[in-house]
């Protein structure tokens, strides 16, 4: 694992075609695709390292407390995160929604179009799928992280070639 981590640069690769407002703190090695949207109305947004944010991801913080996102998360197209804390190694599939004040643990998978209702806490290793049927299982963590790391290193190489990016 540690060898592969060296392949990923420490810089953040952020497309210029995004909308952002307020206090946002980024870790290292994050990727943000065009048309993402970040907004704070109260406390700051604190993002960890090695996350991928795809198109039309919306992250809004309306609370006074900071919104904290961990490491190695994948937010796919159209995910909406409203004032909720997120752990590590999570996978938000297209159009997943986390509503006000929810809390999501580590290694969670939120399936397409599923939503986490207000003020719920998802324990670690939870998978939401279909019409919100809840299941619990332990994903093969190494394999998922392997895919994520390769995805990251690919995007770090190819995203700046065709899009105008900021390297921070």
């Amino acid at each position: 694992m540690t060898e592969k981590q060296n392949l990923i640069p420490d810089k953040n690769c952020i497309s210029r075609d995004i909308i952002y407002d307020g206090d946002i703190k980024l870790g290292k090695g994050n990727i943000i695709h065009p048309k993402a949207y970040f907004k704070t109305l109260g406390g700051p947004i604190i993002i960890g390292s090695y996350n991928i944010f795809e198109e039309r991801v919306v992250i809004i913080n309306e609370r006074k407390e900071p919104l904290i996102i961990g490491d190695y998360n994948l937010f796919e197209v159209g995910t909406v995160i409203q004032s909720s804390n997120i752990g590590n190694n999570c996978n938000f599939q297209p159009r997943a929604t986390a509503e006000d004040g929810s809390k999501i643990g580590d290694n969670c998978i939120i399936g397409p179009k599923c939503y986490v209702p207000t003020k719920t806490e998802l324990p670690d290793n939870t998978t939401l799928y279909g019409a919100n049927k809840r299941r619990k299982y332990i994903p093969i963590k190494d394999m998922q992280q392997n895919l994520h790391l390769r995805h990251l290193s690919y995007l770090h190489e190819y995203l700046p070639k065709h899009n105008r990016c900021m390297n921070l």
Partner: protein
Amino acid sequence: MDEDIIYYDKSEYIETESGNKISRKSVISVPQNIVLGGKTIIQQNCIIRGDLRRKGSGYAVVIGIGKYCLLGENSIIRPPYKIYKGVFSYYPMKISDYVHIGKRSIVEAARIGQYVIIGDDCVVGRFSVIKEYCRILDNTVIPPNTVIPSFSVFGGNPGRFISELPESSQIIFEQKAKQFYERFLPKSQ
């Protein structure tokens, strides 16, 4: 089948020589990697990712779209990705003729056959294959790697087989697609 004419603002759309109508408000990254078959309509706020492609240099078709297609408002077309033989890469995506994709749909399929209608708010997973003459209802979620057979109607979350289509659906779908293109006209001053 006389339906209302859809008028659009002439300054908003670009019309190419082969009859493609592309909104200026859509986001098309790296147009060199995208092939349009002609008479295709791309509506506003549509995102097409042509920059996510296989490793290596040079010209490559990432997204091929046939003729008489419609990409609705706010839809997103992006190629699928996977690890194959230890190498991560994005793979090309093929959309055939007479394919309608509804509003706010997200498509990451590997191949979409001819005469397919995808409804509004759908999510088509990575590497799913949709064969010819299919209909995907509104609000359907198709999981990754699904193969949808010909003449079927899919719906629900996760998507399930609901019913069959008659053999005449080819003619109906073709007529619908052609009529939509003819109904989509610039607003006359």
